[in-house]
């Protein structure tokens, strides 16, 4: 990594970005299945949103419960602009629309941030919650702009063609989104390298010392907040382009919770964390969401467990293993990990099946048969109940017993003479 003082960008620091661009270009030709491009579009939008959220939570230490507001407002304006373009009142090619959304997000962030970033921590979180609720409630009653319950819809294909492309197919939209994902991610990375981006970390960790260095912590938070609002607005416009509709659902508390969830699961401590989180979360949402109507419960439980036991998220879990890797002791962990994997899986499968079974009996009690993991069985017989309870209990018992072994192996693998961890 070149130091910040060098003004020229070395080629080697650009390599990861070129690889990312290449991957983005190749993806739609590898995954050609019907729904895969739709899912990838969703992932792209979530990536931009989660990355922008992490500018607040991960890099600036500001916990926002209303980040979806900036995305939603950017999206609503984008749809309106799309409709104005359709009436040929202004000329704007579709690929530039995210810029409009971004500017809207930036605009609202400059207004709201001017008073909400005075304090970090709980006060900031509460203001974000209040603003989020206020705007979500306004959404229902101001029908001219927000369209009430049914929202506002538009038509992206009516914009003037860009180099002959009219963005009719999902694939064309994919490249538009991929382009903006790359640009925004790159810009957000550059932001972390600026003095303000660096100071944001300092303000997060120790605001007092940051002030002594000569930076106003409020100003640093404000700049981060505005930047985050800008990129959230871009995500909103991308959402508007992809789905051509925005409703109250896209900016309410639930939507903000989704952003928090995706970002946190990926890991807030690392630049790549939100990307991992966005990909995984969207995949889970679309894949598991099709299989069960309890997916929100599962993600919620996983989220709670992660906050309790794995606060660094998935990327954090990965990064933890760098130390044993450097010590050359990663091999010591393979055996205990594979040992706990089997009872752990049995426990999870058992618990999930039991949950699904209870849900089935409670809410679809009239249907006698149900299918779980490609096996059809009778819910009235005692056998599935017994099997699932045994699975859960046995899996839990052995996982707990083996967890001790894993802990011990972990201690051995990371043990360095004279260093306490």
């Amino acid at each position, binding site marked *: 990594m070149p130091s910040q003082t060098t003004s020229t960008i070395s080629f080697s620091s650009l390599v990861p970005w070129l690889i990312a661009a290449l991957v983005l270009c190749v993806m739609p030709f590898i995954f050609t299945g019907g729904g895969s491009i739709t899912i990838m579009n969703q992932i792209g939008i979530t990536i931009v949103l989660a990355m922008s959220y992490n500018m607040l939570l991960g890099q600036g230490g500001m*916990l926002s419960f209303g980040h979806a507001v900036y995305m939603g407002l950017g999206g609503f304006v984008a749809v309106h602009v799309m409709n104005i373009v359709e009436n040929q009142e202004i000329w704007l090619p579709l690929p530039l629309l995210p810029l409009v959304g971004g500017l809207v997000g930036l605009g609202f962030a400059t207004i709201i941030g001017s008073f909400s970033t005075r304090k970090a921590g709980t006060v900031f979180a509460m203001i974000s919650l209040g603003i989020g609720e206020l705007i979500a409630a306004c959404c229902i009653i101001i029908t001219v702009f927000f369209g009430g319950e049914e929202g506002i819809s538009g038509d992206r294909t009516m914009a003037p063609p860009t180099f002959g492309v009219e963005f009719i197919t999902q694939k064309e939209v994919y490249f538009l989104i991929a382009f903006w994902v790359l640009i925004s991610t790159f810009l957000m990375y550059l932001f972390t390298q600026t003095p303000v981006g660096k100071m944001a970390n300092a303000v997060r960790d120790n605001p007092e010392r940051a002030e002594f260095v000569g930076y106003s912590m409020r100003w640093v938070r404000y700049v981060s907040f505005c930047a985050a609002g800008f990129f959230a607005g871009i995500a909103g416009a991308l959402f508007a382009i992809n789905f051509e509709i925005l409703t109250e659902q896209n900016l309410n508390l639930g939507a903000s919770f989704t952003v928090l969830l995706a970002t946190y699961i990926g890991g807030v401590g690392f630049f790549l964390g939100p990307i991992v989180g966005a990909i995984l979360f969207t995949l889970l949402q679309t894949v598991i969401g099709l299989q069960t109507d309890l997916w929100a419960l599962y993600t919620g439980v996983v989220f709670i467990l992660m906050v309790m036991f794995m606060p660094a998220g998935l990327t954090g879990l990965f990064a933890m293993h760098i130390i044993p890797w450097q010590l050359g002791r990663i091999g010591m962990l393979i055996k205990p990990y594979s040992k706990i994997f089997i009872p752990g899986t049995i426990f999870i499968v058992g618990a999930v099946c039991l949950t699904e079974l209870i849900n089935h009996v409670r809410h679809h009690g009239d249907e006698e048969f149900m299918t779980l993991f490609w096996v059809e069985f009778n819910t009235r017989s005692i056998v599935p109940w017994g099997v699932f309870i045994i699975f859960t209990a046995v899996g839990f018992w052995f996982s707990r017993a083996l967890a001790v072994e894993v802990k011990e192996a972990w201690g051995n693998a990371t043990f360095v003479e004279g260093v306490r961890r």
Partner: protein
Amino acid sequence: MDLIIINLIDGLIYGLLLFMLSSGLTLIFSMMGVLNLSHAAFYMLGAYFAYQISTITGFWVGLIVAPLIVTVLGAGVERYGLRRVHQYGHVPELIFTFGLFFVIEELVQYVWGRNMVPYNSPESLNFIALNLAGGTIPAYKIFMLLVSVAIFVTLYYVLARTRIGMIIQAALSYPKTVEALGHNVPLVFMGVFGVGTGLAGLAGVIAGPSLTTFPGMAFLLGSIVFVCVVVGGLGSLTGAFVASLLIGWLQTFAASYNIGAGDILLAMGYEYPKDVYYHPWRDLWTLTLPQIGPILPYLLLVLVLVFRPHGLFGKRES
């Protein structure tokens, strides 16, 4: 005039209900420095537990047992969840309670379904207590009022006059010193968290029959409770009380006076547009006070935070 009295009573009942939640929330906040975002979820749990119990034994057993179950659950959450997350800092704690809110909401839907449950007030309270020209007040509402007032008085007495209350108050400001004096401060924390959530549960038990018991009830009231706590000033019990009553009346009065924005515009001398439903300012003409009612608390919140960031009664530096 009668309508005003009825609204005053209704608003008072609603405000005291809000206070039952916001008092626990404030106590927990001033103790742990953490806003329990899942507080309203415990309120909902109280209502659902009471409903489940009332299907077997009737209303009165549920009134006693459901809040106790919620208290134990709340204490468990503090002991096994929050205390663990506490070591990571305040932000993960907030995230934890926020996530807990959604999990409890999903769990309630998982167990009791997405529709409302038929949780009703007891037969013995199904009569009209007050009959005024403008409307009536059912006896159940008077019962709610009495329970809330009793809780308020008890809470005040315990905190201000008893030994336990003194330990709690001391533990709020100087936990280390109190611990050095031989008191089990983590136990006090757990107890306060449990009792706070238990109070929320009790609020749910008595509010369930009157405000309907459905999975969205936590969300509906929860966000208003946070408004109360923040408007009153984080950590101030008096502030929470005043703000709860204020918002209770604000919402009740806004809901019962059907003043349209159009009437005001007409009175100001503007002309009514011909095709109001296609007019660019149609919302200005068609909005009514009951429609704006739900956003008034948030508006108040934002205004208070802008002009008086520490709340009405909060300390300057929090």
